[in-house]
């Protein structure tokens, strides 16, 4: 009996080793492009194409030159593009978090056909690919004068609502109704109940949704490219796309450096916020 159990354990640990190796390989494949970006952003342009995965040597090391070149190259101000990217990202995410959490609360708490229809429309919107609607969208956006960085968050709100509402509805349903009833008896109006009682409990979901939306909007290329007047307004992804020297040559070293600059804020934000995702805030509120 004991031997059998021992044999079982051995088989299990062998299985774990195989699994670990497979996962490690997948991880390496996954991280490789990132590594390439980091390595190449410190290499001279000529070496990027020839020794893509080699570490910078004394000969190929470019120092901060690529970063300086990337920021100053081209006919558009990099910091202006950063400002537009930051504004669009923050405004869009804030709009999405505020409106979809309220909508999800209503959908989860009010049992009506209207709510069900809205909910299924939101889920349906998640399966419609952006490419299907992008041309009509860019035209409509121009007609409605939504083609500026100040108004594009409204379009992001529309596209981000599906996933956000889906995630929020799931969480709101797990909040016991009694807590809201207690708040109503204690003297809260429905709006106050939402902001004083539900929003603090929704924090982990808000942060999860926030991270997803921020990564999506910050990195998005197609939507701003189609909607905005790119001569006037460029976000960082568009700025990188237009990063060409004279005669259309592309400085790969500088491009890599800018890509690295562009992804750093998102990674920092993710690292700062991840502990809140794990935190189970509703623990201890009710029995169970």
């Amino acid at each position: 009996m004991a031997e059998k159990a021992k044999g079982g354990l051995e088989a299990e640990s062998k299985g774990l080793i195989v699994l670990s190796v497979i996962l490690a390989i997948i991880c390496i494949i996954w991280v490789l492009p990132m590594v390439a970006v980091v390595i190449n952003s410190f290499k001279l342009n000529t070496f990027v194409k020839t020794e893509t995965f080699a570490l910078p040597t004394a000969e190929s090391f470019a120092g901060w030159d690529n970063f300086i070149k990337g920021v100053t190259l081209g006919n558009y101000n990099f910091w202006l593009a950063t400002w537009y990217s930051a504004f669009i990202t923050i405004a869009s995410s804030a709009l999405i978090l505020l409106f979809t959490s309220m909508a999800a609360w209503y959908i989860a708490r009010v049992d009506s056909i209207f709510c069900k229809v809205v909910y299924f429309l939101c889920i349906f919107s998640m399966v419609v690919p952006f490419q299907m609607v992008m041309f009509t969208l860019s035209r409509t956006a121009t007609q409605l004068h939504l083609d500026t960085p100040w108004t594009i968050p409204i379009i992001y709100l529309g596209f981000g609502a599906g996933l956000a509402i889906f995630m929020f509805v799931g969480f709101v349903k797990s909040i016991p109704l009694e807590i809201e009833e207690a708040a109503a008896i204690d003297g809260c109006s429905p709006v106050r109940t939402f902001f004083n009682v539900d929003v603090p409990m929704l924090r982990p979901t808000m942060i999860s949704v926030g991270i997803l939306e921020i990564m999506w909007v910050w990195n998005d290329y197609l939507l701003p490219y189609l909607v905005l007047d790119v001569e006037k307004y460029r976000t960082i992804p568009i700025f990188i796309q237009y990063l060409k020297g004279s005669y259309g040559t592309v400085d790969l070293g500088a491009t890599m450096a800018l890509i690295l600059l562009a992804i750093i804020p998102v990674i920092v934000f993710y690292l700062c916020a991840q502990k809140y995702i794990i935190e189970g805030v509703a623990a201890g509120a009710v029995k169970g």
Partner: protein
Amino acid sequence: MAEVVLEHIEKIYPNTEPKKKKKPKKGQPAEPEKKSNLKITDEGVVAVEDFNLKVADREFVVLVGPSGCGKSTTLRMVAGLESITRGTLTIDGVEMNDVAPKDRDIAMVFQNYALYPHMTVRDNLAFPLKLRKVDPAEINKKVEEAAQILGITQFLDRKPKALSGGQRQRVAIGRAIVREPKVLLMDEPLSNLDAKLRNQMRAEIIKLRQRINTTFMYVTHDQTEAMTLGDRIVIMKDGIVQQIGTPQDVYDHPANIFVSGFIGVPQMNYFNADLKKDGDTYSVLVEGVTIELPEDKQQRLRENGVEAQPITLGARPEHVSIYDGKGDQSHMLSGVVDVSEMMGSEVHLHLNVDGQDVIVIVPTTDVNFTFEKGALDVGKTVKFTFSGAVVHLFSKETEENLEYKNQEQHTFDL
């Protein structure tokens, strides 16, 4: 402190679309439909029917009944968490049917505590006062007072998740009493606690009641809680009030078989019997044994004009006495001991009387000293009887208590 009056209160949940029946799998019989005993009308399912109750100022009223009997629904209607379909609810003479919960000046304690998880205990207690814009110094004083009463002062800066079940329930009660509501509603507040803690908290609620002068409405499915806490008990079944009375009243004079079975542990024993009438004198024939009834019972039966009829006779286990070998044994019933449960101070004997289970409570001292050794062991035949003064006579047809059938049992007010 307030008087709560519920007049002809009804709650009807409108009919929803009939759910599609699941097709039974091949080779499997169709699932039987679950049937609820709640009345269904054209309007919908009647969860509470014609509920009348006047809760006096500072009274402690307990609503008790099995699950689905409408007790929580009634309490939630008083709280304003459920709309009232028909009838009038007044608190302190003011109609409250359409008043928002926050404006009713009530507080409620929930079964699952319903504390705000992101706030400390102190903030939880202070929250209702903050919403009412009470002066911060005053809030602090009241929170400290409430914490003192409930013994949670040392937990004030903790979050609910760091507390045990009993402590959390204390915080929930604290949040309810801190703003001195007119009516304190409690919806099965002890159901989530273990047996020992429940007994302890029950005693604390009794003490709390002595300290804060307010009107209590308490919902439970536990008859012990109802009996020990309530000034009056409202017993409900299938949305209908069965009886309203003091704990002693419902124990001594149950209105019908349901109430008699629900109140009292272990449950009352029932026998098929015949009510005989000889001129003006009633007697009961059970298992071939005639039981004489005392004069007060005779009087009540006469006043109600009860005719001779087959009846259900009820006798509480504590009122059944086992023949100890002394005196006349001609008027005794007999049964075989099936199970003997040692409870500590007493022994519960389950007797098999013609295939029917009859429970008898015998004090442990009697088992050891009054009876012969081994006389009450499993498998032994014992003789037992009960006095005519303590039996309950229920109509076979209506299940109502024949002695009280013409009295208004759905008492509006005592």
